[in-house]
C-alpha cells in the first residue's frame, strides 16, 4: 500500500465520518439479521425515495453552515417555490424543465433576499432566517388562503422511471425523480465544495471570515452564492416532495426545519463554520433514515421513533464533544 493511501486511511480512521460509518454498519448488520426485509433492494430504494426531500435540503444547509451562517427559512422557501411552480404549471402548462426552473428560480430569489438582509443590513443570519421564515410562510398562506393543490399535471403526477432493471423474478427497479434529484444534488454539492475554487473559499470564509476578507475574498458575493444555493436546493427539494405526496400542501413543510438541521449536524458539520463534509451529511442522513426505518421493521410502534432519534442525537453529539475534549487534553499533555 502506498504511503499516501495509508496516511489517508489513518486520517479517515480518526475522523467523525469513520465513527458514523461504523455505527451505521453495526446498525445495518443487526437489522439485517433481525429482519430479512431490511437488507433488500426494495427497502433501499424506498428509503432513498422517502428521505430525498430531507437529504436535498441537508446539502443546501451544509453549504450554509460551512460558510459560517445558518438558515432555517428553507422550509418556507420550499413551500413558496412548490406552490408557485405547480400553480403556474396548472394554469399555463409546463414541462419538467420549466417547472424545475420556476421552483429553483423562486428559491434563488428568496435566498438572495436572505443574503441581502444578512449582508447589507448586517443582521446575524439566525435572526434574518427566523424573520424570513415567518414572512415567506405568512405571506404564502395569506395569499393562497392555505388551499391545497390536489390536481397536478399528469406528467408530473406520473413522475419518471429511468434505467429500469429487473432484480430477482418479480420486482423491477428504476431511478425515480426523488432518487435522481437526490443523486444529482449530492454530486453537484460535492463538486462545489471539493473541486472548485469557490468551495475552498467557502470553507475559508466559514473558518475565519475576517481573514478571508483581508485576503481579498469577495465575501458578499460568496455569501450571496451560499444563500442562493440553499434556496435553489429548497426549490428542487420542494418539487421532489410534491411529486411524492402527489399534492401541494402549503402548511405541512414548515416545522420540519430542525429534522434537516439534525441530519447535517449529526454528520459532523459545525455550527460555528468552516467544518463539514458531503460524506458526513450523507452518513448523518443515513443514520437517521436507517434508525427510523429499522424501528418500524422491528415492529416498534412509530409513536416511539422520536424517542430513539432524540437519544441518538444526544448520545452522538455528547460522544463527539467528549472525544474532541480528550484529544485536546492529550495534545496539551504531549
Amino acid at each position: 500500500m502506498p504511503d499516501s493511501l495509508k496516511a489517508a486511511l489513518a486520517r479517515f480512521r480518526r475522523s467523525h465520518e469513520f465513527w458514523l460509518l461504523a455505527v451505521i454498519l453495526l446498525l445495518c448488520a443487526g437489522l439485517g439479521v433481525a429482519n430479512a426485509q431490511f437488507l433488500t433492494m426494495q427497502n433501499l430504494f424506498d428509503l432513498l425515495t422517502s428521505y430525498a426531500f430531507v437529504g436535498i435540503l441537508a446539502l443546501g444547509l451544509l453549504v450554509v453552515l460551512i460558510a459560517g451562517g445558518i438558515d432555517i427559512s428553507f422550509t418556507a422557501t420550499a413551500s413558496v417555490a412548490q406552490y408557485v411552480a405547480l400553480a403556474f404549471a396548472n394554469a399555463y402548462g409546463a414541462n419538467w424543465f420549466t417547472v424545475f426552473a420556476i421552483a429553483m428560480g423562486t428559491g434563488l430569489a428568496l435566498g438572495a433576499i436572505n443574503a441581502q438582509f444578512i449582508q447589507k443590513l448586517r443582521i446575524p443570519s439566525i435572526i434574518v432566517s427566523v424573520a424570513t421564515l415567518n414572512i415567506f410562510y405568512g405571506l404564502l398562506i395569506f395569499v393562497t388562503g392555505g388551499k391545497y393543490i390536489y390536481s397536478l399535471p399528469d406528467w408530473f403526477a406520473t413522475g419518471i422511471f429511468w434505467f429500469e432493471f429487473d432484480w430477482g423474478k418479480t420486482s423491477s427497479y428504476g431511478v425515480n425523480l426523488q432518487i435522481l434529484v437526490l443523486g444529482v444534488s449530492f454530486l453537484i454539492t460535492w463538486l462545489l465544495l471539493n473541486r472548485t475554487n469557490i468551495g475552498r473559499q467557502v470553507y475559508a470564509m466559514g473558518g475565519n471570515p475576517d481573514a478571508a476578507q483581508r485576503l481579498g475574498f469577495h465575501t458578499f458575493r460568496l455569501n450571496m452564492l451560499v444563500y442562493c444555493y440553499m434556496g435553489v436546493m429548497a426549490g428542487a427539494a420542494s418539487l421532489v416532495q410534491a411529486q411524492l405526496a402527489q399534492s401541494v400542501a402549503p402548511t405541512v413543510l414548515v416545522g420540519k426545519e430542525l429534522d434537516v438541521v439534525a441530519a447535517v449536524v449529526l454528520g459532523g458539520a459545525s455550527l460555528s463554520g468552516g467544518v463539514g463534509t458531503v460524506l458526513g451529511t450523507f452518513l448523518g442522513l443515513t443514520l437517521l433514515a436507517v434508525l427510523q426505518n429499522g424501528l418500524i421493521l422491528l415492529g416498534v410502534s412509530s409513536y416511539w421513533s422520536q424517542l430513539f432519534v432524540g437519544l441518538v442525537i444526544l448520545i452522538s453529539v455528547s460522544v463527539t464533544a467528549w472525544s474532541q475534549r480528550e484529544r485536546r487534553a492529550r495534545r496539551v499533555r504531549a
Partner: protein
Amino acid sequence: MKQETSLSWLQRVGRSLGGGTIGTLTLLLVSLWVVFALVIGDRFFSASTLQSMAFQMPELGILSLAMMLALLSGGLNLSIIATANLTGLTIAFMLTRTVPGSEGIAWVGWQLVAIAAGFAVAGLIGLINGYVIAYLNVSPILATLGTMTLCKGVAIGLTRGNVISGFPDPIIFIGNGTIFGVPFALVVFALCAVPVAILLNATPFGAKVYLIGSNEKATRYSGVDTRAVLLRLYVYSSLLAGVAAVVMMARFNSANAAYGESYLLVTILAAVLGGVDPFGGFGKVGGLVLALAILQMISSAFNLLNLSQFLTLAIWGGILIAVAAVPHLRALLRR
C-alpha cells in the same frame, strides 16, 4: 433621590430618541398604538380587547423568558416547548389519576403534588441540558435539539399523541380566572418576569451570566465556575418552561405532546426583538416585555381588523428585521 430618578428617566427618553433598543421599541409601541387607535377606534380600547390581549400574552411571555435566559449566555434552548408539553402531561396525568372527586385536604394536596411532580420533570430536563452543555461542552443548539426530540418522543410514546383533559377548578383558574379584572395568567407572568429581572440585574449570578455571554473563556479564566453557572441557568430555563406548561394546560384544560410548537421560533423572535443579542451578553427583561407587548398588540389589532393571523406572522418577521437593522442604519447615517 427623586431628582436622580427623574434625571435618569430624562436621560433614557433622550437616549431613546438617539439610540438604544428600549428607545426604538418604545417609539414603535407608541406609534403602533396611535396608528391602531386611529384605524380601529373605540373597539381597540374596549375592556374585552385589553383583557383578551392580557390572556394571550403570558404563555408566549413565560416561554420567551425561558428562551432569553439561554440566549443571554450565548446559548439557545430549543427544548422549551417539548419540556413544557412533557411537564404539562405529567401534571395532567397526575391530576386525572390521583385527585379525588370531593374537595378536601387530599384534593388540595394531590394537586400540589401533581404540580411538584411536573416541576421535578422540568428540573430534570434542565439538569440534562445543563450537564451536556456545561460539562460535556456540546453546543447548546445541538444538545437542546436532542433533548427536544427526546422529550417529545417520550411524550408521544406514552400518550400515543392523545390529549389528557379535565382538570379541577383551581388549575383552570390559573389559565382563565381574573383578579380584579386582571387575568391570573398575567399575574403569573409578572411573578416570573420580576424575579428573572432581579436575578439578572441584581445578583452575582446574573452578572456572571452576562459575562459568560460576552466571553465565556475570559470569564472562566477570571475564576468564575462557568459550568456551575450554566447548569443552574438551564435548570432555571427549564423551570420557566414548566411554569408556562401550567398556564398553557390550564388555559386549554388539556395537555398534549404537540401543543404550542409554533411558539418555538416566535420566542426567539420575541427575545431578539426585545434587544437580546443572539450571541449572548446583552438583553434586558424590560426590552422583552416591550417586544411582547408590540407583538400582542399587532396580533390583536389584526384580529379586530379581520386580517389573517398569517399576515400577522409576516408582519412580525418584518418588524424583527426592521428593528435588527436599526443599529446598522443609524451607524450609516452618522457616517
